[in-house]
């Protein structure tokens, strides 16, 4: 496979990537949502006072672990994480495509944005 990619081709690939990311995350959230409603749908949830989420839903690894234990909150949260990861993946692929075009100013800009996004998600 050659790397003689035109702008249009890259945009096509990235467009499909974004659509796939959004559709997959929507599907996961929908599945988690149906599961959640089946479990808690009849209950009445009080939103008058704000309660933070339990600690296990506050980290990427905790969310994945709880989804694997068939926790409906965890499954929805995994779907939301996939949705957040979609633009992050897009920035990553932008950096690569700018690199292929040898447009190094924009490679640096993309990598700085990517670093901020990853720091926001994984953080200290």
């Amino acid at each position, binding site marked *: 496979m050659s790397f003689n990619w035109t702008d249009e081709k890259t945009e096509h690939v990235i467009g499909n990537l974004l659509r796939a990311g959004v559709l997959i995350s929507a599907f996961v959230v929908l599945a988690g949502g149906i599961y959640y409603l089946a479990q808690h749908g009849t209950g009445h949830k009080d*939103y008058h006072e704000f309660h933070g*989420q339990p600690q296990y*839903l506050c980290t990427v690894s905790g969310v994945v672990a709880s989804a694997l234990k068939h926790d409906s*909150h965890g499954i929805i949260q995994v779907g*939301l994480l996939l*949705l957040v990861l*979609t633009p*992050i993946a897009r920035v990553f692929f932008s950096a690569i495509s700018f690199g292929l075009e040898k447009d190094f100013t924009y490679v640096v800009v993309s990598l700085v944005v990517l670093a901020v996004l990853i720091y926001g998600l994984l953080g200290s």
Partner: protein
Amino acid sequence: MHGSYPTPEGPRSYLVSSVSKGFGLMFGAGTLSGLLGIGSGAVKVLALDQAMKLPFKVSTTTSNFMIGVTAAASAGVYLRRGYIDPSLAMPVMLGVVAGSFLGAKLLARAKTQWLRRVFAVVIITMALELIFNALTGRL
């Protein structure tokens, strides 16, 4: 800077002007959205459309994309602080995704003149809501 965007009559090219003015307006947009919690998309569209002279459809889609990336940065922070309630986020996310797929499909076909009118109505409504909230002391 220049680019091109697809239209039903084939690709049309455009030029980007006053990048520094755009940068300044974007700085203001970011500050406003951080302070007021309003979507700065409206301000971004105005900056891209009026100051940088981008075609309207390019302005709206670029602004939307920028929001996606910046929102991803804050979404990570919100998650770690436990601010994202899955039971609340689930219906919101599904509704927004369905709506945005419909919107994106419509955008390709919609007339720019019509889009501008809808946009004007939306930002006037937003402005009235902000003024109302400020006067009634809810802000």
